[in-house]
């Protein structure tokens, strides 16, 4: 079957199976930034923005995305660049498997609550796991990103 949706501002029609998850449809259609890290919605590396809200795409059935607006990190390049700059300057990069999904989540936080305090930031991002960094440098970088002008 077919679904119509907008991905990163472009109208798309994808052929899907009715029990297929959005994650697999996106990967199959060349959005490599969307990744799978678990089987039960517990890691966050599959995050996309669905009508502007971060969701784990591994638990969204593609069939439910008819006419929805999807954003992957490829759709927020400029924001990813800004966050990458802070990550780089603070040494928050390691394997990077978690990074694109993190960029989407903090971008969404910035839109919702640019003034978020420490606890709010942590709570907002708690579903985005990272096994490499120990979180501290990431946290500093995210604070700087939220503090950026514009």
């Amino acid at each position, binding site marked *: 079957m077919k679904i119509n949706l907008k991905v990163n501002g472009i109208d798309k029609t994808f052929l899907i199976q009715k029990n297929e998850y959005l994650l697999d449809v996106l990967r199959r259609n060349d959005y490599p930034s969307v990744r799978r890290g678990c089987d039960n919605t517990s890691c966050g590396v599959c995050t996309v923005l669905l009508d502007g809200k971060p969701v784990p795409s591994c638990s969204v059935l593609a069939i439910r995305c008819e006419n929805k607006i999807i954003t992957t990190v490829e759709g927020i390049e400029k924001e990813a660049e800004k966050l990458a700059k802070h990550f780089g300057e603070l040494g928050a990069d390691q394997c990077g*498997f978690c990074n694109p999904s993190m960029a989407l989540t903090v971008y969404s936080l910035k839109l919702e609550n640019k003034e978020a305090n420490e606890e709010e930031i942590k*709570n907002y991002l708690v579903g985005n796991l990272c096994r490499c*960094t120990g979180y501290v440098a990431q946290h500093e970088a995210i604070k700087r990103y939220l503090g950026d002008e514009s």
Partner: protein
Amino acid sequence: MKVVNTLVKSIDGLGIMKGRKAYTDDFAEKDSLIVKVLRSPHPFAKIVKIDDLEAKKLMGIEMVLTHKDFKRIPFTRAGQGYPEPSPHDKFVLDEYVRYIGDEVLAVVGVSDEVCQKALDLIKVEYEVLNPILDFEIAKDNEIIIHPEPEIHEMFDIGFKPKRNIAASYGMEIGDVKKTLESCDYVIKETFYTQAQAHVMLEPHTVNARMDYMNRIVIFSATQTPFHVRRIISQGLEIPMSKIRVIKPRVGGGFGGKQAIHGEMLVAYVTYKTGKPAKMIYTRKEVFESTYSRHPMRIDISLGADKDGNLKVIDCLGLSDTGAYGEHALTVFMVTGSKVLPLYNKVDSVRFAGDIVYTNHTPAGAFRGYGAIQGNFALESAIDILCKKMKIDPIAFRQKNMMKEKETSPIFAIMGEGTAGTAMNMETCKLEECVERGMELIDWKNKYPRIETEDKIRSVGMAIAMQGSGIPYIDMGSATIKLNDDGFYNLMVGATEIGQGSDTVLTQIAAEELMTDVEKVIIYSSDTDLTPFDVGAYASSTTYVSGNAVKRAAKELKEQMLIEAARIFAVKVEDIDFNGETFKVDNTDKEMSLIDFSNQITYSHEQKQLQVTSSYVGHKSPPPFMAGFIEIEIDKETFEIDILNYVSVVDCGTTINPMLAKGQVDGAIIQGLGMAHFEDVIYTKNGKLISGDMLNYKIPTRLDVKKLTTVFVDSYEESGPFGAKSVGEIGIDTPPAALANAVDNALGIRIKDLPITSEKIFKEMRRKNNE
């Protein structure tokens, strides 16, 4: 230094953040066949019959592979020096299954769905056997987990499969028994550590295709591409020259990818069918069917005299390697060799034990590699001894621990799988690490505890060491080439797995060539294109591969000077090169690197300047650290809040201070995971309950309050620009530091990991009932 030890950003961060294609599955062919494994529901069974007729009839199923399809060639999946110190006890598929999650057979089809359907249709008849699920009864049990005749060791590792022993080891210096008898204070304690899971966020992933030259090209999320090529060649009898292994970006390894996992099946399918194939482990498979850290029991006796001198350490271990023996001996030896030298002034020291088979998920390499287990036992025991002696645990450590220029006889006796290498500690800033750490955590004011109405705050500490590669075994190499327009390519077999080695190695090359990191383009790693490197393990990359890069860069520079001298018709000594310009001494003749490189590429006596160099360590200078934890415990619930972890590290020069800090921070949190969060639970039938990320809790960002990570000044002569390693050392101290802090708070001693509130609760009840 211009580039080394400065704040250089990771060279790949931007593209990674933008989600560019980078990881193994991003390069899978679109039409890859899917390989799915049917996994054993029994901890131990013999496969009697497989009925796959219906499955094979399904449209879209290419093949079903069983043990009958493979020649019986035993190998080890462990990616380590060859001949491997791990037993060759694994077949691609076998008629026995030895743990819940073991490979029964594989289906190959055009989609996940059809493979799943096929798996559902296949009926397997098993003869269910009694398993061994308790490693303390495995040795000489009447159940024999590996009865098959073909399996073997490559050299003497103490492999005795009929006794369920994958390997064993023993050494004694002095006379432990006698020294213990002569001591004024003696303690004897038993510690247990759990089968920690790596939980790297990228699951094990592999894909393959035949290229137009009819060679098999395998993309693998591996730490050891060259070992993968060799093991596949041996296991499937494909000529090594027909195999190309490419390691793209790896989404975390921590030792979990220092072995082959899906590679064998995928390679077989592609080689056999000519079609591309791929396999991505589900998270459940990663937990259940790859490998974990070796659980251990460690019996430790310490003896001291009344003047506070530690006289003897007796350390007897028992390690559970699960169903297969990957890294069995070497991990166990590190439990001794990278822990016990911390206290080098003892008269006697013994380290011995067996690594046994059980019907659990196998164990293998994991950051720390035995040292974290040994450190938990020894550094807990030191505090227990000090308590008994009523002396300050830090003063005791300061008196007895390793100091600069000293050595330990253990270095010469214990290597990894073989004898070791004698060495002096040319750099050991442990004293400074301890002092700085005490200041940073404010030990004087906080030790042992501060009590308020409902909470207790306390501190605890531990010291640790690791290594920097395996001397005379780990080899790294690098190729550097000068291009027109004056930039360089750096090709290394060293494997970036997220630890930042591409950046660090680029910095080393740039420093030696007196240029910027932008001018050095690194590529890692590809068995066709990059020179050999053992891979990312044993904390070897910065030290071993880094030395190779430095050497290659130096030699290329020498070649460039020779060419420049030829161009100017002067002697090499008369040429001065500053990274950008060649100048002839005492003249105004000069030539830019760009003009030089263009000239030797296009116009006069053209040639390609390129150098390959290798490095094998002659020693393994240990990094050292002191770790201090501050916790707050709720008096009623015994919930532990980790307030701060101070790490003071001596890793020589930090080539990239930010990335080094990232290595320590990340390792501390993983170590705290093992110490406090990550409980491994099996049912009594041997099924892993903590086999997903809901039931196996790795630390989240809410669990991390504060990390204080600093480096002391240190310069290791033998390392590249003074560097030692930093990848593993951070993981070692948290378990003992936490156990010591809990004791300082509550006066109870938890001796099995993880240290949870429930265990504290039980122990407190026991204590109060006494």
